[in-house]
């Protein structure tokens, strides 16, 4: 139990001023604009949008500035803001096969229809600090290597088939079920509390907004043996997809804009049963923005959480859906951990008194007399 403490208004006001001064830093240095953050720290913006569960680059950039670069705090700000807005509707499911692809690779097939496209990736950099960036005056356009080459275009813009769909055609990967629940809306954990066992729809929603660090650690653990999934990265793609809705007053679908997404399809080892032949199984990751580490982790954890339905032992923490789903939200986790900072004076006093009494019974009387 913690109790309200009165007083301290002046100190709190002063604390806010200090916080603001700390955020602003040296006033002699020009202040960052929100647009600079959204343009030049796009990966930070992506993470805040994904875990804040609100796609809006400007708002995420503003939150990052306000939180002085503390991304989990920025995520909290975005989550708080979203509660002030009404829900206008639900989109049609995005079609990632029709993505305007900026990057697309497969670790399972060298030659895939549509080809492999590296796009913007740090994978092949040497991870050496670039001191040219440190000197802003050296960012003379002539010296930079950010001029994009433009190759001759393939004649037509064509949908790029998903690698998994090719395996699916051969029947070597489990089918995704669609028909049964098409009539009813998917679970929405922002409206109804999570219930166990959770459906895959609820699990994917939780994972999509889950903490990247937590999911990365769980995915890593699953690879190291705390799960039994044997994954391959079937396909990773990043790019832009259209979002469309069907407004009631129109009755047909219209595009309202575009968003960036990263999609990961993990191919995992066979499951088979008396009725189903051995097949590859799937783990799926879909995340706002360009976030491969997060999307890959999500796909690993999605597959781990499917252990039970696939008849596996499912006795690792990564396969325990209550453990994973209840602890992946960094806004909730941060709130509970940090509430320990609130005054617990009364609680602590009672424990202190109890401990003193126990000690007086434990310590020999002669020791007490000697004090």
């Amino acid at each position, binding site marked *: 139990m913690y109790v309200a403490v009165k007083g301290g208004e002046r100190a709190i006001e002063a604390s806010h001023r200090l916080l603001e001064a700390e955020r602003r830093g040296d006033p002699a240095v020009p202040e960052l604009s929100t647009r600079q953050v959204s343009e030049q720290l796009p990966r930070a913006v992506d993470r805040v*949008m994904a875990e804040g569960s*609100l*796609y*809006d680059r*400007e*708002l995420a950039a503003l939150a990052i500035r306000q939180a002085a670069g503390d991304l989990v705090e920025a995520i909290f700000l975005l989550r708080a803001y*979203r509660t002030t*807005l*009404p*829900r*206008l509707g639900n*989109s*049609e*499911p*995005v*079609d*990632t*096969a029709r993505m*305007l*692809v*900026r*990057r697309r690779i497969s670790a399972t097939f060298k030659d895939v229809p549509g080809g*492999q*496209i*590296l*796009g913007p990736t740090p994978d092949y950099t040497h991870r050496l600090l670039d001191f040219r960036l440190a000197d802003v005056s050296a960012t003379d356009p002539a010296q930079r290597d950010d001029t994009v080459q*433009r*190759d001759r*275009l393939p004649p037509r813009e064509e949908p790029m088939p*998903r690698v*998994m769909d090719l395996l699916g055609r051969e029947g070597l990967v489990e089918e*995704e*079920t*669609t028909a049964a*629940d*098409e009539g009813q*809306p*998917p679970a*929405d954990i*922002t409206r109804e509390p999570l219930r166990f066992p959770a459906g*895959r*729809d609820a699990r*994917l*929603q939780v994972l999509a*907004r889950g903490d990247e660090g937590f999911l990365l650690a769980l995915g890593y653990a699953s690879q190291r043996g705390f799960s039994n999934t044997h994954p391959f990265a079937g396909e990773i793609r990043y790019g832009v997809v*259209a*979002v*469309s809705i069907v*407004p009631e*007053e*129109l009755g*047909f*679908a*219209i*595009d*309202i*804009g575009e*968003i960036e997404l990263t999609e990961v*399809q993990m191919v995992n080892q066979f499951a088979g049963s008396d009725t189903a032949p051995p097949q590859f199984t*799937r783990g799926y990751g879909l995340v706002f923005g360009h976030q491969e580490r997060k999307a890959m982790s999500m796909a690993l954890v999605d597959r781990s959480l499917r252990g039970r339905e696939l008849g596996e032992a499912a006795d690792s923490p990564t396969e325990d859906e209550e453990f994973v789903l209840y602890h992946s939200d960094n806004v909730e986790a941060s709130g509970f951990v940090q509430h320990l900072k609130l005054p617990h004076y009364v609680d602590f006093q009672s424990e202190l008194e109890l401990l003193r009494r126990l000690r007086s019974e434990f310590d020999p009387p002669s020791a007490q007399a000697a004090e």
Partner: protein
Amino acid sequence: MPEATETDPRSEARQRWMGVLARAGTDALEAAWTGLAVRPGYRMLRPPETGLVMVRGRTGGIGRHFNLGEMSATRCAVQFEDGVIGIGYVAGRSARHAELAAAFDAMLQCDAWREEVEETVIAPLAQAERERRDAERAGTESSRVEFFTMVRGED
């Protein structure tokens, strides 16, 4: 992507221009609006309202629906004196973007305006969008890669 196949050609045309208006930025629509020789008057049927659209995905890209996360969006409805209603639904929080999209949508439904707006507003916006996409695709194309494996399979 639209799932309900819409066969009515009038709806199809409307679907197309509403998409172009939504993808264009506020500034582009403002410039197009200012560029009109004559601008129609309208009243707000539903003033711009910003809210959230829940974006849905499918498991494995093809399976069951699930809720991925929300995006900001703004809607608006305007009405001309003769009763024609224009609707704007756009990503983001720009009230002006939604309002102008609705005004153009109403104009495009009127025989008196359609041709002019198609030619002077929608066609150039669609062209700019194509050019942007093509430039981006050409840049992406430059990083296409052929991977070689040192140890080949059975062949």
